[in-house]
């Protein structure tokens, strides 16, 4: 049996047994733990504790630090900073760790009753391999990095462990606050349910316009199409312009639309929003087109689309031999995720 003897009367100089000597062992903090809101410490004598400590924001390893041991990180930040539906941003504070310190991230949907690991490519996996330990640069440094492949409308928490050198992995940090992915969505609405063209004559161009409002948090953006038939009245109809855009011309039958701010005739507005592309043949000012009974790609975006607006302008011209009547049609706009 190993028996230690020591002198603690004033300054401790040596703790020894028959076989081992600890020179000037430290003695701090008494024999109980000491806690504040942010830190915890345990009174230690030499290297004895078998338990780690954790407060709301920080963790402390169980034993005294090894010579090359990484700092245990403060609790990481996990957030949904852009209406993401399959990813969340993690940001860690590397403390005083060297730049080649590696970090492993555990992630959980159920407050760590079960958990997975962030992989090298920032997706989620059930196991942690050596290549899944990432350095600060691989985690986006102060800007953080996005963990991807998460479930929609689901809350997650993360913890981070660190190591630097062999045999010196830290315990996990305190658990982050919960962050929740959004649901992916597509939204489309029109500010008008009907668009009145007034009285049609061969002397003037009839116009009407309406605004489509759309948004989506899908990364590939969205597409809006237009379909329908030309104006009809019983068995009579106004000829559609077709797929090649042309200028408005009175005295001949024309039914068409575009999505621009036109001056001849003065109708419409430019789209309001970012990354919006108006597709041919609807993209040139004062030129109009319409193909009957074909789904026509009208507008696309290529990334997350905040609420945006596109004005659809319809023009109609009648000819002198156009049959009188009440002409009607239905224009259908359909939105898809790209």
């Amino acid at each position, binding site marked *: 049996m190993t028996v230690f003897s020591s002198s603690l009367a004033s300054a401790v100089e040596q703790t020894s047994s028959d076989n081992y000597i600890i020179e000037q062992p430290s003695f701090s903090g008494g024999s109980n733990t000491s806690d504040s809101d942010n830190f915890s410490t345990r009174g230690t004598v030499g290297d004895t504790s078998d338990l780690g400590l954790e407060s709301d924001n920080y963790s402390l390893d169980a034993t005294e630090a090894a010579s090359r041991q990484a700092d245990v990180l403060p609790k990481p930040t996990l957030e949904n900073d852009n209406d993401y539906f399959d990813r969340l941003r993690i940001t860690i504070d590397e403390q005083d760790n060297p730049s080649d310190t590696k970090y492993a991230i555990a992630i959980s949907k159920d407050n760590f009753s079960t958990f997975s690991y962030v992989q090298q*490519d920032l997706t989620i996996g059930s196991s942690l391999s050596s290549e899944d330990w990432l350095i600060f*640069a*691989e985690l986006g440094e102060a800007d953080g990095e996005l963990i991807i492949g998460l479930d929609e409308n689901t809350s997650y928490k993360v913890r981070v462990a660190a190591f630097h050198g062999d045999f010196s992995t830290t315990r996990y940090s305190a658990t982050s606050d919960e962050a929740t992915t959004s649901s*992916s969505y597509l*939204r489309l609405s029109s500010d008008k*349910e009907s*668009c009145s063209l007034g009285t049609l004559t061969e002397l003037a161009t009839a116009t009407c316009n309406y605004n489509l409002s759309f948004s989506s948090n899908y990364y590939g953006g969205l597409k809006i199409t237009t379909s329908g038939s030309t104006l009809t009245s019983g068995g009579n109809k106004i000829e559609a312009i077709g797929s090649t855009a042309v200028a408005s011309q009175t005295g001949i039958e024309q039914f068409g639309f575009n999505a621009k701010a036109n001056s001849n005739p003065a109708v419409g507005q430019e789209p309001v929003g970012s990354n919006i592309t108006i597709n041919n043949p609807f993209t040139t000012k004062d030129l109009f087109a319409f193909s009957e009974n074909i789904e026509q790609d009208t507008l696309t975006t290529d990334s997350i689309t905040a609420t945006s607006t596109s004005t659809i302008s319809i023009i109609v011209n009648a000819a002198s031999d156009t049959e009188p009547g009440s002409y009607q049609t239905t224009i259908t706009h*359909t939105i*898809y995720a790209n």
Partner: protein
Amino acid sequence: MSVSPAKQHLTISSTQNEPVKLIVRNHSTKNTTINIETRNLDSSSTSRVEEWVTYSNNNFNLNANSSQEVMAEINPSNSVPSGAYSIGLVVSASDPSVESQNATVDTQITSTILINYFSNSDTSAGIEGIDLNTEALEISSYKINNNYFWPQALRVEFNLKNNSKFFGVPHGLVRLTNSKGEVVKQAKINISAKELMPEQTAEYYVDISKPFFTTGNFNIEIIASLQEEKPAVMQKNVFLFPWVGVLILLLIYGGFKLKAKH
């Protein structure tokens, strides 16, 4: 009106019936009638895959500022070969109190279901039919902006091709390593959730922001994979020469020269 999710990915076999859920929201201040129908979004398919869908409720009233959950089920037909199929759940709203005068405006929202389907009668395919080790994803047409200047981002451009017969969602990263193999910078391929169709090639780029301030040889490694498949990797050695760094070196030299004159 909005629907959620915008897209869903399913992997099913012909012996499975797979449930899907759709949430329809009425954002207007008016009650409306919602109608849901299916549409085959795969124009090259002669199979009527839209008939695989059955609904719990595809015609219902939805009050203003409220939402409704709609359950549907995908019941695949065994007569269809293994492959990628896409079905649209097309949601439209109608207000029967509105009478059209000249042009009635309808809006529809399509929630897309992308299905990787494995037919039990198709012995040439199936999960085992995908070669997990090679060629599911191909990286090509690598290019960088060699004349970048700090702190402009270093842009890495490349093509990804889906060589499988199934839908895939590519993801991955581009990393910059030094001669010791240490990672200097890394950025992920910001394309997750945008599918590559079978045989489709698409262009992608990654911006490595504020890469570094050093001239020398580095390795650029592109690691990309389709969902759970093993990644394709491309590695290139490049000599990077940030001209702002050169400019500063010249200024320092000039400063010494000026001091020597005095």
